[in-house]
């Protein structure tokens, strides 16, 4: 039985040409997807030196017959599409018939396979694009693709490979995505012989998430279940008690294929509206299933982007499904902010009132204790502290609990309270000169990392140590922190380190300077007044004073300004006075 046919030229033309193999992680992705298409129940991935030296994927799928082996390295040889129509009904993961030849063109690759039920297997190799003969060989059922010396004949690509730690992290990310969508398959990922993760088959999504992510994520899962005509949305939303600083914690799958879609990202944001602090992003594991004919998956060759025929229905479904899940969950105590317009209006009225009177700070609820206060309470109880009595000399007001408007000699100044405060903190941190005190901890803080983050941790620990952390590996996927730089000691140690490792693992050239920037930027952001925080006149004044005093570093982590000035002339012009 010959399963592989060469693609009709008309199909070839329909397929967007594009690079498939960009880095070791793309090889892993293609090979693992092939194994899944071959109905494997267990897939083992062995990587050496971040994939630069070797990537080997072994599966328990149905394997290939001899004739297929011969065709496997031919361009546009695929057993998965027969006619142009098939292209619109894509259900298997691979369909372009060019992964194996593309890999073979830039490495020394060898396929060893044995078709299910056959006694004898076959072997073929491709060395920098040159295919060898098909040879018979003894082999277990299934397929093993071994890829060595990736990019050996394309020196530029080889040079642009990142450090082994960064590449294995990208590989672990890829396998994480695939593994989430295929809980019925067991996975094993090893790097330089050391196990990165091993995932059992058949335990269901929640268990798989548990195997792959840190315990806080596991404990915060809320099931999502939404059904409409031709569309089903399932999976787990993560309670807002666990958040990320970007959208990398959002795993969205369309018909089991990992996708990135701006529309869905913003639908998720919408569903979480009111639950999150600004600058924080939710984590989610979302599976949308619909008729393959209702999507065009071939928009981009790496196949993570899609185009929906009816985007509105999908986005609406995501918003409703996720929102319903969050509302049904017990989120009391984790709800960060409610920015309902009603409340905003009241807040604005308050602020205006306060601006006009200036003498007496109004607060949303009068929390000034009528009986003598005595507990020294922290910032979060700032409302409970007696408000300063003396009237501020400057004219300013806070609006929308987010911006501050100040009268200046030349006009008015608009301040983003969070951005400015963050900048002040960041400047202070970056200007501090070592050696800085290191605060020892009473009990070491232990933290469990996600499998992907753990895979790249070796390279990162040195950087933390250089910054003054005392940090050690402490068993499987766990780190222990014994001391932290005093400057960072007010932050949540576990959260800070986990997040920094995530960010540093992603970055191309993680070194001490970039790590320093990341850590301080993170701390500055966390320590800064948040948008949505009500400030007392005293607090606003303090902020303005610090702004006056500091010549601040140019730092815009979000690429946006902290302060805007409007001159009287500009205002006059706008009002048609001049």
């Amino acid at each position: 039985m010959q399963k592989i046919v060469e693609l009709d030229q008309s199909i070839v033309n329909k397929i967007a040409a594009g690079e498939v193999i960009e880095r070791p992680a793309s090889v892993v992705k293609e090979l693992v997807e092939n194994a899944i298409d071959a109905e494997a129940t267990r897939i083992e991935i062995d990587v050496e030196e971040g994939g630069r030296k070797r990537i080997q994927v072994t599966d328990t799928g149905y394997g290939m017959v001899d004739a297929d082996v011969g065709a496997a390295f031919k361009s546009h040889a695929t057993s998965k599409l027969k006619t142009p129509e098939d292209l619109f009904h894509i259900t298997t993961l691979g369909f372009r018939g060019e992964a194996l030849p593309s890999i073979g063109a830039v490495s020394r690759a060898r396929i060893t396979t044995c078709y299910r039920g056959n006694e004898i297997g076959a072997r073929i190799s491709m060395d920098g694009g040159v295919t060898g003969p098909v040879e018979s060989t003894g082999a277990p059922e299934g397929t093993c693709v071994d890829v060595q010396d990736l990019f050996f004949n394309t020196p530029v690509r080889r040079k642009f490979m990142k450090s082994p730690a960064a590449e294995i992290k990208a590989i672990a990310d890829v396998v994480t995505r695939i593994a989430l969508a295929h809980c019925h398959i067991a996975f094993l990922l090893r790097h330089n012989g050391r196990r990165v993760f091993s995932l059992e088959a058949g335990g269901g999504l929640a268990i798989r998430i548990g195997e792959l992510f840190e315990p806080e994520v596991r404990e915060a899962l809320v099931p999502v279940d939404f059904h409409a005509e031709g569309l089903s949305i399932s999976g787990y939303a993560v309670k807002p008690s666990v958040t990320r600083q970007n959208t990398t914690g959002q795993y969205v799958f369309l018909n089991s294929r990992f996708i990135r879609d701006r529309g869905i990202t913003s639908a998720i944001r919408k569903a979480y509206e009111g639950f999150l602090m600004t600058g924080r992003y939710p984590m989610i594991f979302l599976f949308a299933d619909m008729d393959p004919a209702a999507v065009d998956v071939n928009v981009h060759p790496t196949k993570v982007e899609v185009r929906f025929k009816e985007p509105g229905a999908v986005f609406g479904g995501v918003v409703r499904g996720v929102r319903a899940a969050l509302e049904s969950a017990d989120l009391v105590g984790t709800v960060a902010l409610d920015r309902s317009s009603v409340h905003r209006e009241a807040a604005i009225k308050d602020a205006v009132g306060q601006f006009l009177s200036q003498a007496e700070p109004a607060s949303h609820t009068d929390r000034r204790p009528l009986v003598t206060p005595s507990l020294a309470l922290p910032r979060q109880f700032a409302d409970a502290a007696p408000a300063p009595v003396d009237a501020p000399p400057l004219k300013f007001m806070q609006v929308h609990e987010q911006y501050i408007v100040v009268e200046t000699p030349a006009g008015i100044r608009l301040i983003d309270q969070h951005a400015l405060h963050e900048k002040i903190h960041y400047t202070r941190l970056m200007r501090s000169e070592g050696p800085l005190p290191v605060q020892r901890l009473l009990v070491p803080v232990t933290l469990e990392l996600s499998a992907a983050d753990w895979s790249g941790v070796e390279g990162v620990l040195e950087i933390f140590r250089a910054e003054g952390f005392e940090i050690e590996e402490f068993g499987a996927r766990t780190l222990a922190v014994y001391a932290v730089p005093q400057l960072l000691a007010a932050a949540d140690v576990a959260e800070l380190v986990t997040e920094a490792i995530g960010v540093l693992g992603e970055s191309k050239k993680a070194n001490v300077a970039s790590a320093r920037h990341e850590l301080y930027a993170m701390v500055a952001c966390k320590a800064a007044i948040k948008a949505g925080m009500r400030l007392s006149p005293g607090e606003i004044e303090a902020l303005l004073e610090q702004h006056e005093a500091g010549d601040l570093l140019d730092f815009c982590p979000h690429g946006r300004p902290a302060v805007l000035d409007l001159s009287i002339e500009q205002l006059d012009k706008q009002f048609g006075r001049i």
Partner: protein
Amino acid sequence: MKIKMSLAELSAAWGVLTTAVPQRSPRPVLSNIKIRSAEQVELSATDLDIGIRYVFEEAQIEDQGEILVNAEKMSRILRENPSDSIEMEGTENGTRLSYGSDEFHLPGEDPSHFPASPEFKGKKMFEIDKGVFQTLIRQTAFSAAHEETRYALNGVLLELSGTEFKAVATDGKRLTLARTKCKGGKGMEFKALVPLKGIQALDKILSLDDVSIELGADDGNLYAKTKRAEVICRLLEGNFPEYEEVIPKGYENRVKLNRQVLASKLRLADAFTTEETKAVKMHFEKGNLTITAQGPESGEARVVMAVEYEGAPMDIAFNPQYFLDGMKVLTDESVLLEIQDANASAKLTAGEAFTYVIMPLSLD
């Protein structure tokens, strides 16, 4: 419903109840305080993490029923302290407040939408002296964490074992333990990890005249009761560190220090630290403690106090604020400081009742 209430008592009660009114909430009904009149007048507020119920003393009840009063609006009225008493009446479309010649109407919200306060009946509780309890929580709450996402540190652990009652708090860099003998609740098990907000509410309630407080807890909640008020507070989840193991049994190098002198010397040195290097170095030698601080821009301080130190010379660095925080919550004339070496924790005690463990800074 129609009642007349003393404004002085209402002011005091309102100040306590508003601790439980959420700043913002997806449920707008919670921005109110519920007033219910039956045989007595009862006020309640909740943000669903904490609920407070207060039974009013000086009220005349003309008609029974329930109303909701916007917490902020009433605070504004009370701030003006306009009269001796105030009348409240439920009307067809809301609530009418009046005294003297002034009158206010609050739009109606259905009081039945306000969450019911949980029952206290049948809860096992024990009694503890108000002043003692207040001291304990004030001596510990300051060292709790505020930022942690490991929520278990954002509160104070209250524990009764045998006849000993303890309060413990830590932010991971220091830990306080305050304890007292407590005769109530013999043979009763009590352990509750109370969030700071709950601690603050208890502190406020105790500032209304009462002689004692009753405490109890089940799996998820703390129950507290005074003569006029009841507080229910959702407990923190998660593991509180094994605090007994963190407290050193005692070190060889011990030195008795005058609390006020030490605080004063530390404040002097602290003035010469910067936000970046909040560190003072303590040098102990026979007869003297020298405290130094320095910063690139802030200058240098060197202050000396005479102490009865007998051990070998020793250097150890700390965040001075940690010490000052501790000095502030004590009234004792002297404290005992025990140290081991530059990297081990220091233990500061004021008698049996107060223990404070502080982790040092490494300076190089």
